[in-house]
């Protein structure tokens, strides 16, 4: 999570307009999810890998690690779709008899499962592209621009900021505890963790009050208005996005 966040601020695509990156990621994701053929997700996976590794300059190792996260989850769902248990082996493509039951695979199920698997992985890679190249703050600004209610975007701004503040606090407390042998035994670990949480809640309460005070001091009256840095709009990028998307749609149409 934290690694994704750091890359978002420090990659070779960071100066590209966030709307362009979002448009690209979201449109590609929609095409991926609606694809009737396994070819599209494969092309998209390659496209996003190229975008992330070559264009954004993020190490391949990081991207692969991130793809492994949903992999376990995806494999489980694939297995549940593919494997059929019945007493009748007819129609099964591959099967094995066990204690009077037949465990097997229907061929159409297999195709469907692989397709689903690739579609999911393709869609996830689109999201990774966005998350690795675009800071959350910029994404929130886009949400604000497309008229998502400001209560939601404001909360996102504050939550995003304070995740890090509280994480820092928690890490500091934990360090202080470990350096005084707070985690040497099971018992002391339980006690330390409970103390960490109660300290953290106390701190959160104080910090939120201080934050409100300091925001009032700068004229806060109930609505957070901020200005975002302007990014140059690059028509070339729009052309590239259009061409790529048309290409993907064509694959969808021709290989249905």
């Amino acid at each position, binding site marked *: 999570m934290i690694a994704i966040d750091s890359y978002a601020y420090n990659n070779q695509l960071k100066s590209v307009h966030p709307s362009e990156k979002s448009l690209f990621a979201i449109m590609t994701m929609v095409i991926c999810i609606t694809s009737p053929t396994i070819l599209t997700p494969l092309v998209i996976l390659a496209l996003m890998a190229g975008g992330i590794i070559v264009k954004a300059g993020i190490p391949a190792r990081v991207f692969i690690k991130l793809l492994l996260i949903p992999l376990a989850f995806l494999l489980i769902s694939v297995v549940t779709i593919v494997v059929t248990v019945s007493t009748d082996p007819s129609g099964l493509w591959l099967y094995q008899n066990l204690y009077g039951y037949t465990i097997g695979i229907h061929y159409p199920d297999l195709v469907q499962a692989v397709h689903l698997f690739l579609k999911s992985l393709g869609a996830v890679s689109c999201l990774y592209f966005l998350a690795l190249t675009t800071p959350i703050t910029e994404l929130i600004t886009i949400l604000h621009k497309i008229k998502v209610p400001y209560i939601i975007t404001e909360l996102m701004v504050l939550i995003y900021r304070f995740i*890090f503040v509280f994480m820092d606090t928690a890490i500091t407390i934990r360090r202080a505890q470990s350096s005084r042998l707070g985690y040497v035994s099971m018992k002391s670990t339980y006690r330390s963790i409970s103390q960490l949480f109660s300290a953290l809640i106390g701190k959160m309460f104080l910090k939120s009050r201080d*934050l409100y005070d300091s925001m009032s001091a700068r004229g806060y009256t109930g609505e957070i208005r*901020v200005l975002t840095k302007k990014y140059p709009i690059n028509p070339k990028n729009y052309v590239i996005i259009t061409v790529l998307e048309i290409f993907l749609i064509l694959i969808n149409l021709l290989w249905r």
Partner: protein
Amino acid sequence: MSKYILEAVDLQYSYPDGTNALRNVNLPIHQGEKLAILGSNGAGKSTLFMQMNGIYRPDSGCIKYQGEEISYKNKALIELRKKVGIVFQDPDSQLFSASVWQDISFGPLNLGLSEEKVTERVKQALIDTETTDLQDKPTHLLSYGQKKRVSIAGVLAMEPDVIIFDEPTAGMDPRHSQEFMQLLNSLSDKGKTIILSTHDVDLAYSWSDRLAIMYRGEIIAQGLPGELFSRSELVQHADLTMPWLIETYNELLKKGWILPSTPLPKSKEDLFKIIPIKSGQQTA
């Protein structure tokens, strides 16, 4: 028009838990002055500052802005906060956005300025606090001193008349804290009234026009820095130490290197100037 831009009159304040944080505080602040408030931890400096733009309301006594008691009605408070800005002690409780740009633009936008004007002010504040190259970083990846400078930029961009800094140089490295003091001087040259709190006696002594010493919720002394620091019992009582410039001056005086009529040095350069050349020694 009153001769004081801001004034604390008989301020009393207790926190809800009963801590008596301010006791009968009287503090006039002159238009355009550089005032340092010295006090050890827990003396009540931050609490006093919170009163000055109406964030906390005193139990009794009042704050006057340009001679008039401040009102705690919403509209009046907003007007007051346009004129009196505070940079808080802890940057983590001031920076609400992960984006440096967004955070700095927050204050000026609340002033109702146009986007162009706000952009201009953000850029200027970034330059003034030397944070231009931090603008693309998220606030959570900045060091403490860097966050501090961004939070200062957020208030500078509002261009208030009175700027209050709560322990601004704590956590800054020597170079940045020196440059920050220069920034304060240039703000002061532009006519801003500047108040800062610190427990750094050297900084307070060299920088300020006037000094107030706080101790356990009271202002136990206020006046010219040279005068206050000549009262060593006072300095000790407030859990502070003597500025090294004054200690050196006193030592030189005691050992007969300088005459009692020699003026107190305000800076290292002043001090070096008053140290006489040993007789027989050639000047360089």
